[in-house]
C-alpha cells in the first residue's frame, strides 16, 4: 500500500495501532481494521442510497418545474427517512403461489451483490477495501450477477408481469454487459493493468475521458442500461409490466430492491469516476473530496438522463445494443491498439 496522507487511511491505521497496543495480537488488529472497512462501506452505501432517493425526487421536481418534497426538515431532507420507516411498518405479504425460499432470498442477494462491488472502489489514495490485481475485472464479474436475483425474483413470484420483467433483465444485461466490458478494455490497454490503484495513478497527468472519449460515452450508456434506469428501465416499465420483478414484494423486501438499485447507481458512478475522470486526482482539495465531487457529477448525469428521455421499446433496446454500441466499442479497441502501437512501439 502506498504512502498517503488522507484522514480515512490514517483513521484505519490508528485503529490498527490502538488494538495492537491494547491486545498485543496482530491478527486482532487486522481483523479490527477489516471490520472497520466493512462497517464504513455499509455506512457509505446505506447513507448514499437514502440521500439519492431524496435527491432523485428533488431533481425530478426541478426538471419538471416543481418544488419537490419540502415539508420534512429543511428542504425536506428527512423525506426518505420517513419513507424507509414507513416501509418497515408495512405488512409483509407473502402471496400463496410464490416459491418460498427463492422468493425470499432474491432481495437479500441483490443487495449483497451490489455491496460486494464496493470492495474494489478506490475512494482515496490507499482507501480501498481490497486492491486486487484484477480489480476492474472483479467489478464487472460481480456486478453482472445482479441479473440472477432479478431473474429469481421474477420467476419465483409466479406472476406473468414479473416473469416478463425477469426475462427482460437477462436479455438487457447480456446485451449491455459486452459493450461495457469492451469500453473498459480501452482503458486497461492504455494502463496495462487491471488494478484500480494503477488505473487511477495512470491518470495523474491526463484523464482518460480525454484519451478515450468514445469509450466513456459507450460506458455511460451501457451503465445506464446496467442500472435499469430510464431510458432503459424496461425491467420495471410501469406502463407495461406494473413493476416488473418487484410486483409481489411489499414493505421491506421491496425496500431492499429499491436501495440496491440506488447502491448500484452509486457503484457505477464510482467506477466511471475512477476509470475516466481521474479518480481521486485533483488540485488543492483532499482526494476524497475530489472523488465525491466527481461521483456526484456522474450521478447527476444519470438522473438527468432519467428525467429527460422517454423509455424506449425493447426491440429498439436490443438493436441499439448489438448493432451500434458493440461495433462502436470494438472499433474503439482497434483504434486504441493502433494508437498504442504507433506512439509507444516498445512498451
Amino acid at each position, binding site marked *: 500500500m502506498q504512502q498517503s496522507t488522507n484522514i480515512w487511511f490514517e483513521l484505519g491505521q490508528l485503529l490498527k495501532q490502538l488494538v495492537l497496543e491494547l491486545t498485543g495480537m496482530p491478527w486482532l488488529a487486522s481483523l479490527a481494521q477489516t471490520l472497520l472497512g466493512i462497517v464504513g462501506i455499509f455506512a457509505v452505501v446505506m447513507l448514499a442510497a437514502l440521500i439519492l432517493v431524496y435527491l432523485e*425526487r428533488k431533481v425530478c*421536481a426541478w426538471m419538471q418545474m416543481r418544488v419537490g418534497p419540502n415539508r420534512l426538515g429543511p428542504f425536506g431532507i428527512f423525506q426518505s427517512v420517513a*419513507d424507509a420507516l414507513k416501509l418497515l411498518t*408495512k405488512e409483509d405479504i407473502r402471496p400463496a403461489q410464490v416459491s418460498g425460499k427463492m422468493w425470499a432470498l432474491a432481495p437479500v442477494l441483490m443487495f449483497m451483490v451490489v455491496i460486494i462491488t464496493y470492495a474494489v472502489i478506490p475512494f482515496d489514495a490507499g482507501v480501498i477495501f481490497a486492491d486486487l490485481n484484477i480489480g476492474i475485472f472483479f467489478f464487472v464479474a460481480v456486478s453482472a450477477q445482479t441479473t440472477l436475483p432479478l431473474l429469481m425474483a421474477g420467476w419465483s413470484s409466479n406472476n406473468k408481469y414479473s416473469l416478463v420483467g425477469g426475462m427482460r433483465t437477462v436479455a438487457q444485461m447480456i446485451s449491455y454487459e459486452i459493450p461495457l466490458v469492451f469500453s473498459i478494455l480501452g482503458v486497461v490497454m492504455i494502463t496495462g493493468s487491471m488494478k484500480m490503484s494503477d488505473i487511477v495513478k495512470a491518470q495523474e497527468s491526463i484523464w482518460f475521458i480525454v484519451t478515450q472519449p468514445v469509450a466513456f460515452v459507450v460506458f455511460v450508456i451501457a451503465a445506464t442500461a446496467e442500472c435499469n434506469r430510464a431510458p432503459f428501465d424496461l425491467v420495471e416499465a410501469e406502463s407495461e409490466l406494473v413493476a416488473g420483478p418487484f410486483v409481489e414484494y*411489499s414493505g421491506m423486501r421491496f425496500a431492499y430492491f429499491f436501495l440496491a438499485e440506488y447502491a448500484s447507481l452509486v457503484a457505477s458512478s464510482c467506477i466511471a469516476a475512477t476509470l475516466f475522470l481521474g479518480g481521486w486526482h485533483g488540485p488543492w482539495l483532499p482526494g476524497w473530496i475530489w472523488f465525491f465531487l466527481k461521483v456526484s457529477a456522474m450521478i447527476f448525469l444519470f438522473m438527468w438522463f432519467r428525467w429527460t428521455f422517454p423509455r424506449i421499446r425493447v426491440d429498439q433496446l436490443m438493436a441499439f445494443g448489438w448493432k451500434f454500441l458493440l461495433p462502436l466499442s470494438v472499433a474503439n479497441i482497434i483504434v486504441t491498439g493502433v494508437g498504442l502501437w504507433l506512439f509507444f512501439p516498445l512498451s
Partner: protein
Amino acid sequence: MEVNTEKQSQQDLPALSPLAQLLGTDSVILTTVEQVLGWAQTHSFWPLTSGLACCALEMMATGAGRFDLARFGYEVFRPSPRHADVLIVAGTLTWKMAPPLVRLYEQMPENKWVIAMGSCAIGGGPFVDSYSVVPGVDKLLPVDVYIPGCPPRPEALIHGMLTLKEKVMAAKKRGGKP
C-alpha cells in the same frame, strides 16, 4: 369535508397497568414509538395509480407543476398495489369494475387507507339512479376521507390527504387503531 374521527371517551380505553398508574399515563415508550411510526406513515402516503373516470384527471393535475403533491411527499404513485398505502377512488365505480377494485384494495398490505374522491365515489354522483353504478364506494370499502366535488379541485385532494394525515396522527396520539 367529512372525517370519521369519532372521539373515544376515557371509559372505552383499557384499564391502566400498575406501572402506568404510577406514571400517570399508559406505556410511555410505546406511545412514543407509535407516534414516530405515525409520523413516518403520514408523511409518505404512496397512492395507488388507479383512476376510474374524470376525477382521475384532477388527480393527475395534483401531481403536476402547479399544485405539486410532491411537496408533502405524497407523489410516489406506485403501479403495484403491494407497494401502495392509499387507494384514491377517483371516479365513477360501476358494478362491473367493483370486484377488481375491491381486489386491488385487498392486495394492498396493511396500514392502508381509502379516499373517496368526487361525488361519484361518495354516493354515485350524477349517475346515482343508474342500474350500473355503485352508489358510493363505502358500500364496498372502508372509506377514511370523503372529498366532495364534481370533480374536486386539486387543492381539495391535497386537503383531503392532509386531513387523512391528521386523522391517522390523532388516532396514534389516542393510542387506538388508525
